[in-house]
């Protein structure tokens, strides 16, 4: 079963999704997600390689560099994959990895930089993520020996899985980006406790990490600002797409429960209190789905409305995702309070996604900029 982001996917899209769903259900079913939550590791390398073979990581890269989309719109294809991932609470930093692929592909297109790393990422040899920080606390300083990266990104999803980190930093030349090996001297990934137990969380610290000119991605200044904005929209849309998958999975389970569960001599779904709640939640799910599809489609096409729709999608999904999780919890009642039930995994995911790659409030402020509201 797919979460059907598109009512009528193309044949290529349907193949990609069917194969992806089969893969996920075999490789990391919910039982494995739960084991991971309790501290066990899954076969990450095998997962990466298999996902890469399905094409997950090349959707946003040029065919010349080993990539290729299913439908001609790689952002939309990636969003479809992300939604199926979200429905199954899959591991791995897919939105962050995709943002790095996009950044390296853009850089490689200009100057053939980082082609080798891009190849690793597309082939699933390694995970990368974008150490996104709306507080912009990292700095690239010129020192005698060259350049040094300083700062801390307080929360990065699945940082411990990553071989590469893309860091956005202030510098004397303006905003710039650096590709850092996660095992470079001066990089510390500190494991954190997280609300969302289906993922690992880390704080990433850069204490004077030595940076060579070849580690820079793109050109500092306005070009980097544009690229960072693109990355933010892409990561936002893919995070929102993962959330939409989770929302729909949670909602499907609640609807089924409302059909099966009996109280006061009736299935509880026959009560307006439950039926109308689920109808409202399904409205949010449909709107969220529509908006994510619209944003992914527009971003992939390079439409003028893409940036607005991307920020709106993240802002909308962040708030409605939590609302859907609350509403489903209410339908499940006490059983949703038990660790064994999936409800809390969905709630944790949706609350974490709401904050990841920019909160609703942050994306609303970006939206105003994109809509040309001058302040």
């Amino acid at each position, binding site marked *: 079963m797919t979460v059907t982001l598109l009512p009528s996917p193309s044949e290529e899209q349907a193949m990609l999704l069917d194969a992806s769903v089969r893969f996920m259900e075999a490789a990391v079913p919910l039982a494995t997600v739960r084991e991971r939550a309790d501290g066990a590791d899954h076969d990450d390398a095998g997962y990466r390689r298999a996902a890469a073979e399905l094409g997950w990581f090349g959707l946003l890269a040029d065919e010349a560099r080993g990539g290729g989309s299913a439908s001609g719109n790689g952002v939309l294809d990636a969003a479809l994959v992300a939604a199926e991932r979200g429905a199954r609470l899959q591991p791995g930093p897919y939105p962050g990895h995709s943002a790095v692929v996009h950044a390296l592909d853009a850089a490689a297109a200009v100057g053939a930089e980082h082609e080798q790393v891009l190849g690793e990422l597309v082939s699933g040899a390694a995970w990368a993520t974008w150490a996104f920080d709306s507080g912009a606390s990292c700095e690239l300083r010129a020192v005698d020996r060259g350049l040094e990266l300083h700062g801390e990104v307080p929360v990065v999803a699945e940082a411990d899985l990553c071989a590469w980190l893309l860091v956005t930093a202030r510098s004397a030349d303006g905003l710039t980006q650096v590709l850092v090996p996660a095992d470079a001297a001066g990089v510390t990934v500190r494991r954190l406790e997280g609300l969302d137990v289906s993922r690992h969380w880390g704080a990433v610290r850069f204490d004077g990490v030595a940076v060579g000119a070849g580690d820079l991605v793109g050109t500092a200044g306005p070009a980097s600002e544009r690229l960072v904005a693109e990355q933010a929209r892409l990561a936002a849309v893919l995070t929102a797409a993962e959330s939409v998958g989770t929302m729909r999975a949670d909602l499907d389970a609640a609807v089924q429960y409302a059909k099966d569960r009996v109280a006061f001599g009736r299935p509880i779904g*026959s009560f307006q209190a439950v039926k109308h709640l689920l*109808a409202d939640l399904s*409205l949010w799910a449909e709107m969220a789905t529509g908006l994510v599809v619209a944003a992914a489609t527009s971003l992939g096409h390079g439409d003028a409305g893409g940036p607005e729709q991307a920020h709106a999608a993240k802002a909308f999904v962040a708030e409605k995702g939590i609302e859907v999780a609350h509403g489903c919890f209410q339908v499940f009642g006490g059983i949703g309070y038990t660790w064994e039930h999936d409800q809390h995994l969905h709630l944790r995911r949706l609350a974490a996604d709401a904050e990841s790659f920019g909160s609703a409030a942050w994306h609303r402020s970006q939206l105003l900029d994109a809509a040309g509201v001058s302040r």
Partner: protein
Amino acid sequence: MTGTDRPDLDSYRAAARVWIEANLVRRPTAEAPRRKPWEIEEQTPEELAEQRALQRRLHEGGYAGITWPVEYGGQGLTREHERAFLDEAAGYVLPDLGIAGGATFGVCAPTMLAHASREFLRRHIPRVLAGELIVSQFFSDPDAGSDLAAVRTQAVRDGDRWILNGSKIWSSGAYYADAGMCLARTNWDVPKHRGLTWFLVPTDARGLTIERIRQINGDSEFCQEFLDDVELTDDDVIGEVNGGWTVTQTMLLYERGAGSAGGGSAAHTGLRADLAELLAEVGTDDPQVLDLVARNHVDDLARAALGRRLLALMTADPTSAGSLASYGKLASGVLDPVRANRMMEIAGHRALAWGEPSEAGAHAALGLLNSRFMAIAGGTSQMQRNTIGERVLGLPREPSFDRSKPFREVVRDARNWSGAVG
């Protein structure tokens, strides 16, 4: 005229173009000034008479009722012919018979064509086409609301006459219509859907009083009718006696077709006009005001995206279109008030009171008053939630207490409601 007599589209289009240029007036190219929030736009009797004359000209030229049967004064052509004519006439002034005219051509006459007798149609449809018979819907009972079939306005047979008593409400434009298409109960001893009959009531019938309803937004296009021993005959019956619910289904279909899915369509960028205007007046200093603006813009974009998603879902599965349309209506019902509240907050004192210069504040205030329209009119949000819950999500039905008993007992039992069932 049979299928083979029909003109081919190209020659039809060419002839239409000639007729249009000779008989119609070009529309002014400049946008008509938008009316002020508190101004009422309504045709004077003289303006209405002009529009009726224009409709007659269209009819005489053979361009009214293009798809309607020739037998009743129509042209018996296809939808494609109609579209060709409308394409050609796009830049010209076509008759505007107001809100009741819309109901006449979009809903009432098509419903009649589907259900009324040949004699009835021969008598009335040519007058509709000639602009002489504007028909308003006398559909809702004051006591029925969302429970459309719970009609208590009754028609009692007396020899070959029908005597109608009761009241109808929310009739758009009835105050200037020539007749009303009126739903009445003709049998109280069968379940509610099975004892209904449609009639055509001339607005000048003895015993019929039409009052305009003053609305909270200052308009008054809706009316209420009071029927006090209004006499009709069998000739005025539309469709089968006691078969009114079948006719109603057709009417609802045309009503929905007339409306939209309610979700907006094209991917627009930038703030919606009213939001941009309000922001321009209020200014961008207050970060909390800006966040409210952003919240409304987010929802506007989400609603537009919902419209496109619903269209895609309906295209993929046309049988689900009716139920899916409830999402569009529910979105408006739920989000219009939220949006209006935010507009009020953004506007601040400008929406509390205003003089000449401030239009944006007055718009916000009017928007608040209008904001529940989609949550109530034409099926409340509660009805939409039932439809979505049962027909889209497949949840079990609510208990029903009025589907199988005689309506007379439904009315009595409701008065003695105790809640006890089993």
